[in-house]
């Protein structure tokens, strides 16, 4: 299997994994708040969270590029704190992915939390479970499918990210050169052999992951729904 860009593949997997982990942590309180808050500006926050669904990635990438630049708001702060540039770095890529994939993690979790229902939580409270206890022992297990969906969608979406990476990441091997960018470059340089191999690996991997996830999902729903 010579000639496959293992570095690009590993970097892509790493980016997707880190983004997924961070997003599940971040999206949990956000989704909880969206599912339960009755404040009038919930709709505004929901709209902002959903923006990456409708915006062309290049539009997102353009604004992030400006924001991450050494003269931009976050880029300047990051530079003064770490001495590093945010644009064209792995960290910048992770940050952009987190923002770009936010709706893919938040929306399934929000639906899952709303589906748990107030009734079960009230019952937990009357049995002596504190709010944190209720979250860990009732909300999390009852939201398993929501977490599974959120993780898969985030992972897959980050895997396929192209426009945003191109705008703010560039093409630095081992730092920002992910599979989609490597593939694009291979096609540009008419190296169809490399392009084929990369595409095949990505296709096979994505299909395998989805197969696994849907299998798990069916088993989860079976256990939740059936009697024994």
């Amino acid at each position, binding site marked *: 299997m010579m000639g496959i860009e293992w570095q690009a593949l590993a970097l892509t997997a790493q980016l997707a994994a880190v983004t997924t982990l961070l997003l599940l942590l971040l999206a949990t309180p956000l989704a909880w708040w969206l599912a339960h808050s009755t404040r009038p500006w919930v709709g505004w926050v929901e709209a902002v969270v959903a923006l990456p669904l409708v915006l062309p990635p290049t539009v997102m990438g353009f604004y992030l590029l400006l924001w991450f630049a050494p003269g931009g708001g976050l880029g300047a702060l990051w530079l003064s704190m770490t001495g590093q540039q945010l644009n064209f770095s792995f960290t910048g890529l992770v940050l952009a992915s987190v923002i770009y994939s936010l709706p893919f993690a938040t929306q399934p979790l929000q639906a899952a939390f709303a589906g748990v229902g107030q*009734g*079960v939580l*009230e*019952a*937990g*409270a*009357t*049995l*002596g*479970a*504190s*709010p944190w*206890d209720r979250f860990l*022992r*009732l909300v999390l*297990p*009852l939201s398993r499918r929501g977490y599974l969906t959120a993780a898969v969608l985030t992972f897959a979406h980050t895997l396929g990210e192209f426009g945003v990476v191109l705008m703010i990441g560039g093409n630095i091997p081992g730092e920002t050169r992910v599979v989609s960018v490597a593939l694009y470059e291979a096609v540009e340089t008419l190296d169809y052999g490399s392009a084929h191999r990369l595409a095949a690996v990505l296709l096979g991997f994505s299909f395998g992951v989805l197969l696994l996830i849907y299998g798990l999902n069916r088993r989860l729903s079976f*256990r*939740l*729904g*059936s*009697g*024994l």
Partner: protein
Amino acid sequence: MVTELNIDADLRLGGFSLELSARLHIEGVLGVLGGNGAGKTSLLRLLAGLERPHQGCIEFGGSCWLDTSRGIAVPTHERRIGMVFQDARLFPHLSVAGNLDFAGRRAKGQAPPRDEILQTLGLEPLLERRPAALSGGERQRVALARALMSAPRLLLLDEPLSAADMGYRGELLAYLRDVIDSFRIPTVYVAHTLDEMTRLARHLMVLRNGGCVALGPVSEVLARLDLPEVSRRDESGSIVEATVVAHDPAYQLTHLSFGGQSMSMTGLIGMPGDRVSVRIFATDVAIALQKPEGISIRNVLPATITAIRVDNNLPHADILLESGGHAIRARLTRASLDDLGLAESQRVFALLKAASLVSD
């Protein structure tokens, strides 16, 4: 054991308001009766801490659960209450055993022996089942067991029979009685049928439009002619505390006495000397001016009319009789009332066509 429960609360939820001020002494089961929207469930939710009143104070067994003036509001999970909701609310991801253990683990070492609960409620065969595979009545039994496992100081039951099939209600009611007799936890029981109440509760509170309109021992509240909640045609009646005098094995009858009066019931009930509660439906009581001769009814009690309530839009009149120190409700047609010329303080004879034991 008597536990004191003081409520003084003003709860507003949307268009509904519950204004309640009551000093309750809960001995066994306090029944809460009322129509739809009377505030029964709101009262339970208030006690559980699931609703916060605008203003109010709740004290239970000497500890303060709520005092808005002092900024005290003990959260639900620290009140040590057990609540059985109308819809059971079992945890769908846990088996029956898992649901019980969830409660047991949070009882801080005070959970009653699980085996005793399983036995009382007949749950052994269901332990490995998931809630989705239980019938409505089974779910309520599990919910009751789960509430008991949390070692509650106060049990709140919200129409626990409503989710069960009609045919199964009697069985569930028997389980409830066993639980109440064995675990002796002060209980507030909400229902809208009188039948459940008379079988379980010692005291009765009647709610209407978010306020308390009657509170007292069951037999006293049942005798109130002015309360539509206890005057429904198919259910209104009285409860008489009587003593078993003797059995008549030849005729299969039991002789009872109460306040110097004697009556008999079919079947061999209890043992001589036992105290029993007897329920007499108002529609099973007839009135005669003279002691009737040549009649099949055996229970003929001298009585005095203490109150008559007539509604000219209805064919029936409600009459309250006093006999042997007990209040007995009777329901006649208004036509009979006028024909006999019945009036308050008149001495008559009450004819009891049937009577049943409360514990049946």
